[in-house]
């Protein structure tokens, strides 16, 4: 394979890459723009995968961007082009098949990979992960014949998969080493409401347990730290992810847990940007550098990276990541925005309202820093902006606490009129 050259080279084909591509084309209509995807499938979102497992989303209808979209943007998608190394000095990347691309400006939007805990006997082949479309299809096939499933990890991926497998009729057990589900988003009470829903649907929830040993396949025998023994026809490891930074080994691109970027998504190396789940950027609430691996953040960061790569003068630098997510489970609805699990004290004021669903509001100096809601409609997008803008809620404090939906809407409507 001969060298190929792009003015803009995007490595990765999910939300961050797609947004960056669109943003680049907004200011540079001509420069050669190439996206390298390690997949043979069209670009898709990792978020869709549990729904592919369940069969709700057909694998041939999950594309985030199709050939016409790339053509319309005069951009090229190169599939099955997995980047294994970056050489910033030569402004080049190397592919698994030996191919090479050179670039003027490079965006690393490689996302994350499943993190596999170090457990005795837990070997590839004995378990599934859920990060790619092929992973999802493999689980779907396997679930059709399996009777007992164990899901390791009660994060969003694990819970989505557990729900899917339970709805498909499998006996499902979820093992989580932290004391409750979705610990990165929800406080214990909120998490308990979600956990109970799973139990009501027949899912066995083993919280605060750690997997100590695994052996065999179909069934895979699992020993937990409290002596519980489980057998799994289907084992899914969903114990978190780690940024896909392997391709940077030996380069001067600075990494911590992810690729370190500034507020324009630039790395420390000239001509190299990073965005999305692979990037580690400023956190809004703490100012610390964090990995905020959510879809809306990938969109945000991808857009900023693309604008900066193309020299778009309208770029507004990244304000900092805020943890946020929405979560639908068994037809119900949960939202967490900001530091919604912050304990009371040290300036943080917590108000919990259970009159209509569950709503936990965390204020600091009468400004919103976090809100979690279950079975209660709030506008997550507006709450995000209220946190970002550090809107002073003093004049509407009581109303906001009792009616967060309507009050937030009034504040925002008044703001844009």
């Amino acid at each position, binding site marked *: 394979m001969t060298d190929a050259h792009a003015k803009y080279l995007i490595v990765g084909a999910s*939300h961050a890459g797609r*947004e960056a591509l669109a943003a680049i084309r907004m200011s540079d209509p001509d420069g050669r723009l190439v996206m390298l995807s390690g997949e043979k499938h069209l670009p*898709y*979102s*990792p*978020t*869709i995968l549990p*729904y592919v497992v369940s069969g*709700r*989303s057909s694998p041939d*209808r*999950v*594309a*985030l961007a199709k050939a016409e979209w790339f053509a319309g943007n005069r951009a090229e998608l190169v599939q099955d082009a997995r980047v294994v190394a970056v050489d910033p000095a030569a402004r080049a990347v190397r592919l698994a098949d030996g191919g090479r691309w050179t670039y003027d400006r490079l965006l690393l939007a490689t996302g994350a990979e499943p993190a596999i805990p170090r457990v005795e006997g837990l070997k590839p082949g004995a378990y599934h992960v859920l990060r790619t479309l092929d992973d999802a299809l493999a689980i779907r096939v396997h679930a059709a014949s399996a009777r007992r499933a164990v899901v390791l990890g009660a994060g969003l991926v694990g819970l989505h998969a557990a729900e899917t497998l339970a709805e498909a009729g499998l006996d499902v057990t979820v093992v989580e080493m932290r004391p409750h589900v979705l610990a990165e988003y929800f406080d214990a009470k909120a998490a308990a409401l979600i956990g109970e829903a799973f139990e009501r649907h027949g899912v066995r929830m083993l919280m605060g347990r750690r997997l100590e040993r695994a052996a065999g396949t179909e069934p895979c025998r699992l020993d937990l730290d409290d002596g519980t023994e489980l057998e799994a026809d289907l084992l899914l490891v969903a114990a978190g992810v780690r940024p896909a930074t392997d391709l940077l080994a030996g380069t001067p691109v600075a990494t911590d847990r992810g690729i370190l970027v500034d507020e324009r998504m630039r790395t420390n190396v000239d001509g190299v940007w990073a965005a999305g789940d692979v990037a580690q950027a400023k956190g809004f609430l703490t100012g610390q550098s964090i990995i905020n691996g959510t*879809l*809306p953040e990938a*969109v945000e960061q991808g*857009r900023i990276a693309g604008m900066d790569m193309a020299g778009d003068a309208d770029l507004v630098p990244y304000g900092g990541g805020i943890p*946020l*997510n*929405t*979560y*639908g489970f068994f*037809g119900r*609805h949960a*939202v967490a*925005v900001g530091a919604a699990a912050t304990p009371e004290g040290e300036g943080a004021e917590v108000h919990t309202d259970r009159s209509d669903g569950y709503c936990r509001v965390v204020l600091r100096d009468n400004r919103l820093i976090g809100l979690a809601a279950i*079975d209660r*409609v709030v*506008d*997550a*997008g*507006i709450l*995000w*902006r209220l946190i970002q803008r550090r809107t002073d809620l003093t*004049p*509407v404090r009581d109303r906001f606490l009792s009616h967060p*939906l*309507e*009050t*937030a*809407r*009034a*504040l*925002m*409507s*008044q703001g*844009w*009129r």
Partner: protein
Amino acid sequence: MAAQDTIRFIPQRCDGCGDCMTACSDAKGGASRISVVAGVDQGWELALCRQCGDPKCVANCPAGALDKHGRTGVVGWSAELCVDCHLCTLGCAYGGIAFDPAAGHVGKCDMCDGAPACVAACGKGALEHLSAAARLHEAQAAREDMFVPGLSACQGCNSELLIRHTMRRIGRDSIVAAPPGCIPGMGTVGYNGQTGSKVPIFHPLLTNTAAMLGGIKRQYERKGKDVTVVALAGDGGAVDVGFQSLSGAAERGERVLFICVDNEGYMNTGMQASGSTTFGSWTSTTPVGEVGRGKSTDGKYLPQLMMGHGCAYVATASTAFLDDYHAKLERALAASRAGFAYLHVHAPCPTGWRFPAAMTTEVCRRQVESNFVTLWDFTPAGGLRFTRGVERPRPVADYVRMIGKYKHLAPVDLERIQASVDRRVETLQGFQRRPAAE
């Protein structure tokens, strides 16, 4: 991209009755997609999908279930593709897409296929479905643009909008005269040996525009060719320096369309006053200082003078009311086949009048709402007809206070402006054709 329908909320008229929400629920089933909520201090506020141009809800969707429709502009939602992750709701800062527990999925406004139930249900006039402008833009966008891209008008100038609309309508069989002023200055006549327009365009003197056009038209008529000849002049080229030849051509009934784009002064050359400059205006030749208080006399109102020439058609227009302008342009073009047609379009100048560039259309609208500018047309047979009512104007101060060139004015000056606005309306009403019984 074509302009698209939108639902406008007028909070002053809203009494929070909730009929719009009931109508939406009834029409769509489940929760209302329009939400009227009590304001923070008073009044009512609205949460509704804005059908954003660059929608974040769409960007946040992992399933391709949301999509902005290229022609209607509606952000559509697909029940089939949606996976109920609700991440779209994180993208929206307007509360325009929200989870509906009754329906079990998110809901958002789809504009009811062009006939929004909420608007029909609002008995207070607080919701308006704005679609005329959308259709107008769509129709014009289908026509060929006669100017080069990248005309270098000042930011916020409405003249470029006006001339592009005008020439899209008039089309290729035309010859344009652009006498000295902002319109040639922004590049329509070209530079570096290249033309700025797809039709023949020339740069006459300020003084001879109408005479030259009249001659050109006669020559084409002699050759048996049907050509629209049109002047895109400023107020200098019409009201002041250009007046003599304009008056002569109108008197002779030359078959010409003469468009005066009135920014009330010589804005292209340093903001000197013209005959059209209104009382109290700061300009570089009517300064404000220890002695001067801006222009000390009223402006000359050329449209009224043109009625006195017995032109085949005379009309005034504002770019805040483009549908009105297009209707008048049609009549003017038809009239210019038989005689002289004159259009007077008001062009507030952000640079010379000192107001923010983003406010031009709002300034245009306020001029009309306050009767500072009146919209009317005139034919010798039909007399004068207002195309927008003048009966309930806003105080003229509402307009004047938006404009930097008036900011030194004292209350007594405002009273004088108000009085002259009122007097002009009365004068114009006198030109209306009265029923025979009166």
